[in-house]
């Protein structure tokens, strides 16, 4: 029996291969050994229980930003604002975590809701601008990124700084997603409850996209806005709703990052995970399960690149180059598509 690999997966694997190949050429070009570098890269992400757990901890935020971008994409919207939504969500979570004194489960719930609401607001504004005034969401979300950046900057700087002015005070353990039992079974890794939250949301978003009327309408608006309108769907409402959900997911991503992974909030720059989320969504073909898999892959790259640098001396930016080339590869997947059909035809002739 022949095993059928889905077409999307083939394209994704080709994009990854393309990224790794260009990365290898650059490594070679700068005088290092690509095999040694990649071996170290994967060892750095997978060598021990602790490293595997840290890879998953790195993936957690990416799963959520990836879901956010992918969800908006399904409605035909390009959410380049996941960074800002993530930052504002993280800020609200941090502020709540630093100022409330509640039992841990209750505090975490409050922080989660706050982060989701803040992200939702940051998605709602571009959504309503798109639906009502036809303002392009790419520009609107970029503007919202800057507004988030400076709002966070001044809020944290004026009210919540630690000794250093460039970051917030550290979240107390009662407001942290890290828990003792997870740290113990994973040899003191960063793995935290955020991963479970992300996995639950993968399932929920999967159900919404694939099994619900709303998901069907959102996808319909993405395929052909005018046809959906003609079919009696409220496209404008769906656009707003789609951006709100996307913003909510990115806001929760901020919660899992700042309360789970870093425990304090750095100010003055946008978190890169929002932009990496675009890569995650594209590589994952905008499906929840694809997002999950590609987020783990990118988490591996992010976690392994530091180890690679210390073992082989290859600068860690090679990881980001590979990610960038993979997106470029997804954008130009037409080329891979043609290559695939070319090879398949060749095989059929024989």
């Amino acid at each position, binding site marked *: 029996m022949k095993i059928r690999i889905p077409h999307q997966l083939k394209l994704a694997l080709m994009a990854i291969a393309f990224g790794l190949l260009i990365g290898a050429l*650059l490594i070679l070009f*700068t005088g290092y050994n690509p095999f040694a570098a990649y071996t170290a890269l994967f060892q750095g992400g997978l060598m021990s229980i602790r490293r595997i757990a840290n890879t998953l901890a790195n993936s957690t935020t990416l799963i959520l930003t990836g879901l956010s971008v992918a969800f908006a994409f399904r409605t035909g919207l*390009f959410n*380049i604002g996941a960074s800002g939504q993530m930052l504002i969500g993280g800020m609200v979570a941090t502020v709540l975590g630093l100022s409330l004194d509640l039992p841990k489960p209750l505090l975490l719930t409050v922080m989660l809701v706050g982060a989701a609401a803040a992200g939702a607001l940051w998605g709602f*504004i571009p959504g309503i*601008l798109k639906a009502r*005034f*036809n*303002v*392009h969401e*790419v*520009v*609107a979300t*970029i*503007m*919202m*990124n*800057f*507004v988030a950046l*400076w*709002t966070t*900057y*001044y*809020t944290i700087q004026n009210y919540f700084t630690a000794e250093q002015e460039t970051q917030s005070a550290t979240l107390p353990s009662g407001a942290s997603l890290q828990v003792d039992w997870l740290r113990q079974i994973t040899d003191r890794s960063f793995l935290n409850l955020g991963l479970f939250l992300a996995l639950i949301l993968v399932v929920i978003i999967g159900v919404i996209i694939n099994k619900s009327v709303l998901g069907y309408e959102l996808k319909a608006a993405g395929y052909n806005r005018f046809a959906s309108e003609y079919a009696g769907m409220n496209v404008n409402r769906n656009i707003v709703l789609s951006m709100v959900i996307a913003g909510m997911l990115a806001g929760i991503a901020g919660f899992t990052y700042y309360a789970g992974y870093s425990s304090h909030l750095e100010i003055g720059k*946008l978190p890169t995970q929002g*932009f990496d989320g*675009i*890569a995650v969504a*594209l590589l994952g073909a905008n499906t929840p399960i694809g997002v999950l898999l590609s987020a783990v892959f990118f988490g591996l790259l992010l976690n392994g690149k530091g180890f690679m640098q210390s073992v082989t001396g290859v*600068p860690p*930016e*090679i*990881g*980001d*180059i590979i*990610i*960038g*080339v993979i*997106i*470029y590869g*997804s*954008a*130009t*997947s*037409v*080329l891979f598509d043609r290559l695939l059909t070319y090879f398949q035809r060749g095989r059929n002739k024989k």
Partner: protein
Amino acid sequence: MNTIVQIFPYAVAYTIPLLITSLGGLFSERSGVVNIGLEGLMVVGSFFTALVINFLEPTMGANAIWFGLLAAMIGGALFSMLHAIASVSLHANQVISGTAINMIATAVTVFFARNLLGSGNIQIINTLSRFNVPLLSRIPIIGPLFFTNTYATTWFVLAILGAAYFVLYYTPSGLRLRSCGEHPHAADAAGINVQRTRYIGVGLSGTFAGLGGGVMIVTYSGQFNGSVAGLGFLALASLIFGQWKPLGILGATLFFGFATTMANVSQVIPSLAVIPPVLLKTFPYVATLIALIIFSRSSQAPKAVGEPFVKDKR
């Protein structure tokens, strides 16, 4: 009035890289290709400028600056070809390709900076010096505002703006470029090579954005660190705010330049210190959103921008 005179040189210094980058975006989008990769192209330009100046400075001193800027333009143009190949020849989603350009640019430049110089930061010793334009600087009011403490690059960029205006609206090549962004199929039927024109449009955007990144290094920033602090995205916003017109862009970038500078210096200027800095900082972006709402009914966007040109598709 005094406040304005004080901050004017800083505001102009901030405006010029934004202006030239936005102008680059104009050429790309007028030819029909969305270029969200301006940020990355600026980073590439700033890298080449810093690198070349770093190598030439010991022997050439301040003259190295001009070679640095030239390198920025060439580097930006070459890098933008990645975007052109994807969006013109391979009919890729232009927004995605542009995003990839941004990610690759930052990573690749820091990667090479580390490999070549051992650090992700490149400092330059001499930045461009300011000068007063002879005679003109003595005119009352206008003199102190426009002709005092200026950079040579400011005049260079303004000259390019003038030339761009002339080329776009008064020459056949300008008309051809614009037609490819409006009705590529009609342009094609009229015998214009749409693909080649779009390659040129994207190439110019790389050239100008590269120069923008370079100007930033040699005027106010003085060092490469793999980021241009969102200036490329602001240039994109200026392009849309300025309604895809050269003079509109000039106005929009001046607006951003002043708003940002006011926010930066607000703490030391008493008349501005009463406004919370967060309001001043977010003002340009909120204003852009409001402007977009106002202009949304009469958007002057090129009609075919973002659409791949496929010859047989009608």
